[in-house]
């Protein structure tokens, strides 16, 4: 069967694929002390892909018989993933060079995972979605175990792998049932045949798929892997997992729920309500007990996933497009805040390899720029104005009230207040706790730069939310 292939539309994917092969080959030829050049190659490749992606803004192109679509949604998420890739690459350079890890392999795996994220944004077909999702996850298993001499990293990789493979199996089973019921893999056709009287098996199938995604976005009760995996992984990988990998899960979930499975919303929306409430509450409560910053960020990211799941619970309440936009906006803003926070942790990696929260003591004087940025991220994650995190929460509240689900907004509000306890705890540690000898921290320039840049974005976006408030609306899958 001949396919109509729009090469311009898939050019970013092709560039990234080429870069992946180039990195793999280059690694064989580079001298050991020059291995870090793999990062430069990767960076240039991703940057080129990003530039090409930006030429596609505003277009609507379909390839491969309509299963691969480049619409506003895809462009928004691809631009987002490519930008995140650039940041993760910047954060990785020093960590992996100084730590003497296998750099070529790492960048190869990282880019492969990002390639999966690019394809996930465009997939309008169950099979394509599944392959993309596995392309995102599988390299993650290896990367999590990259500090192979440290048992905790091995544990991280193994845990991620075992739970991941289980959830994959469940999801695939669900997808096969969907195919059995509807006779189609294309999301649009699935939506078409799910109209009308719902079949029990269809509902069960959807729930299986949701369970699979719940693992990807580390939703309770499939969240157990996240803290251990984040803690054991190299810190840049933890940043990658908590931002990029999670956003990829949400990108897939958004497409499935808001198009393919939309007709069954009255059955799955309450499931999301339960998932969301449990995820945010358990995430926040456990986060208050953490002593290690990466684990704190892990539980924080679980709690934040709960907020991002909330809009899914509103589907069918008459405010679908608002819910959709709220979810997208929250993912974008969450990514900036969390990447920034991880940049700070990476900046301190050499000073404080254990990354305990108490290592942050006195940071306000030892590294003013890092500390101030971190304070902004923490306050923003807690949702206090005038920072972007407040606006992100506000939009979710608005969507919840608009869909007549006030109780969800109230639960989220209470959770936000709980979360302040541990977010502000970090701030407290940096500014209030005095250390006997306050040595200045020599933070790497790249990490500091990323942190400061993210902080500026968070501040600017909070003061003038129109900066990115219009993005999700333009990218709506829902009319």
């Amino acid at each position, binding site marked *: 069967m001949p396919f109509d292939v729009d090469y311009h539309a898939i050019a970013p994917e092709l560039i990234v694929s080429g870069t992946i092969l180039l990195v793999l080959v280059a690694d064989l030829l580079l001298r050991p002390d020059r291995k870090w050049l793999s990062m430069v190659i990767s960076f240039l490749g991703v940057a080129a892909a990003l530039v090409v992606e930006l030429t596609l803004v505003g277009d609507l192109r379909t390839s491969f018989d309509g299963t691969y679509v480049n619409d506003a949604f895809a462009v928004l998420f691809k631009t987002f993933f490519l930008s995140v890739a650039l940041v993760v690459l910047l954060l990785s350079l020093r960590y992996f060079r100084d730590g003497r890890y296998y750099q070529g392999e790492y960048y190869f795996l990282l880019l492969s995972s990002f390639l999966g994220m690019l394809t996930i944004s465009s997939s309008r077909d169950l099979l394509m979605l599944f392959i993309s999702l596995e392309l995102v996850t599988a390299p993650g298993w290896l990367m999590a175990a990259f500090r192979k001499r440290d048992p905790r990293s091995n544990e991280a990789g193994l845990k991620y792998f075992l739970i991941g493979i289980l959830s994959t199996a469940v999801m695939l089973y669900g997808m096969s049932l969907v195919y059995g019921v509807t006779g189609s893999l294309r999301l649009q056709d699935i939506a078409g045949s799910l109209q009308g009287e719902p079949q029990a098996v269809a509902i069960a199938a959807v729930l299986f798929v949701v369970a699979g995604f719940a693992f990807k976005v580390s939703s309770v009760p499939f969240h157990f892997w996240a803290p251990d995996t984040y803690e054991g992984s190299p810190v840049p990988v933890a940043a990658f997992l908590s931002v990029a990998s999670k956003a990829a899960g949400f990108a897939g979930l958004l497409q499935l729920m808001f198009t393919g499975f939309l007709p069954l919303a009255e059955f799955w929306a309450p499931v999301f309500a339960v998932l969301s409430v449990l995820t945010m509450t358990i995430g926040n409560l456990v986060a208050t007990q953490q002593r290690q910053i990466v684990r704190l960020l892990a539980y924080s990211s679980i709690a934040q996933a709960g907020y991002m799941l909330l809009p899914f619970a509103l589907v069918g309440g008459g405010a679908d497009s608002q819910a959709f936009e709220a979810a997208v906006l929250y993912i974008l803003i969450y990514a900036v805040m969390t990447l920034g926070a991880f940049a700070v942790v990476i900046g301190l990696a050499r000073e404080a390899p254990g990354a305990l929260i108490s290592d942050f003591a006195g940071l306000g004087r030892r590294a003013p720029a890092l500390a101030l940025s971190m304070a902004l991220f923490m*306050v923003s994650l807690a949702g*206090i*104005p*005038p920072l972007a995190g*407040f*606006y992100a929460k*506000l*939009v979710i*509240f*608005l969507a919840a*009230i*608009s869909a007549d689900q*006030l109780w969800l*907004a*109230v639960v989220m*509000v*209470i959770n*936000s*207040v709980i979360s*302040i*306890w541990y977010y*502000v705890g970090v701030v*407290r540690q940096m*500014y*209030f706790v005095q250390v006997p000898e306050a040595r200045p921290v020599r933070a790497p320039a790249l990490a500091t730069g990323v942190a400061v840049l993210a902080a500026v974005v968070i501040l600017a976006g909070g003061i*003038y*939310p*129109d900066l990115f*408030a*219009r993005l999700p*609306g333009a990218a709506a899958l829902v009319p």
Partner: protein
Amino acid sequence: MSDWALTLAVFLPTVGALVIALVPGDRDRLVRGLGILFTAVPLVIGIALLFGYDFSAPGAFGDGSAGQALQYEVNASWISVIGARYHLGIDGVSLPLLELTLLLGLLCMVYTWRYLPEPGRPKAFVGLMLLLQTGMAGTFVAFDLVLFFVFWELVLVPMYFLIGLWGGPNREYAAIKFFLYTLFGSVFMLLGFLAMYFRADPHTFDMIALQQAGFSQDFQLLVFAGLFLGFAIKVPMWPFHTWLPDAHTEAPTVGSVVLAGVLLKMGTYGFVRIALPILPEASRVWAPWIGVLAVIAIVYAALACLAQRDLKRLIAFSSVGHMGFVMLGIATLTDVGINAAIFGMVAHGIITGMLFFLAGSVHERYHTREIAEIGGGMLQKMPALASILAFTAIASLGLPGLAGFWGEVMALLSSYNPAEGLSLGLFRTLMVFGGIGTILTAGYFLWMLQRVNLGTVPDRWREKTLSDVTAAEYVSWAPLLVATLLLGIFPRLIFGVTSEAVGTLVALF
């Protein structure tokens, strides 16, 4: 220029904070000078506003013409997606509080020129004070609910740091308690705002447009509960007051001045500006409860004050009582009562601000705030300081002829005759208990004066040289002392501004 006046008055302090961030850390004097400059210019703008202000204009309440009552109005697009706008303006209710904020902000900076609390770090201290200033001034002029909320919350983080870094021994506990407590209330307030947004047709966050929304009574009651939680914690009303004694006591001197002088008024202002005009029917239902809580606060605070041994903690508790009078005035929903409330807010800002300055100066000299350790005789040791303390304390207890008198007596007076539909018997009972409260208030202040000012100087202080009031103190206190006297003699200075505005508000009841 008149379009920019309010924006400049609100945001110049933030500009100042940014400028200070760029100044090298060792230029201590320059930093403090910039602090004075960037609060002085807003005050000058604030005074200039008065000349172009139409004092006979009605308040921004009530019918469709309310929008025109706003002066120096700015209404620009801000968050277009949700229709939140950058809407600033002033009317008779906002003006006195804005001026109070601008004045206290400058005086705190002047005080800081000489006294910087431990552990120093002028850049951070002055910068945070300036940020705080923007949040407070903005709250009183914002006419969009989202904007109001942003300003309202902007106050939290700087104050958290001011208490937590420069506060007393128990500062961290006080700082986080203040933070969590206030935030807890304000998120429910936010939900109330959002609910109103959705019920209004067309959806709007504009405070003036919302007054025409005509919400059903059940809805009003629910939303009022949310707003009440936010405002009442900020005021603070009994039984939500427990954060206040800790925060006020632990905060550095100027922090306490600003907390008592301005921050608490944000809560009472919220009732007058948002809760009453937008939710009039719910206000009528809630008013008796508010009145009861207010009077409990008055009596409870007075009794608590009698038991205090720490001078600063005593003043902190006295704030709870004074804010009780303000809330009692508001709860009557009458012209007299609400005028009295606004007068009470300004008077309390001036007098209690002054008292906290004094508590700071006493601590500066004795290095203790325990009344027993000071042990009396201050009138002999430091006659000027002691006289000022006596003057201010007497003003605070409500002596006729000084500023503290009008707010209290008129609040009591108004509860003799509350708005139509409110229970006469209940409010008259409240008046009696409020009256008992004023007697207790006089009692604890006079007793405090007796223990601090009078008597003989204890041996431990006799040989020490304790300097009397310094120039910096005179400069930063003089305006407050003069205002205390002037407002006492010419209450029209405030009532003249507020009465028209309050008139349009009470027409709703």
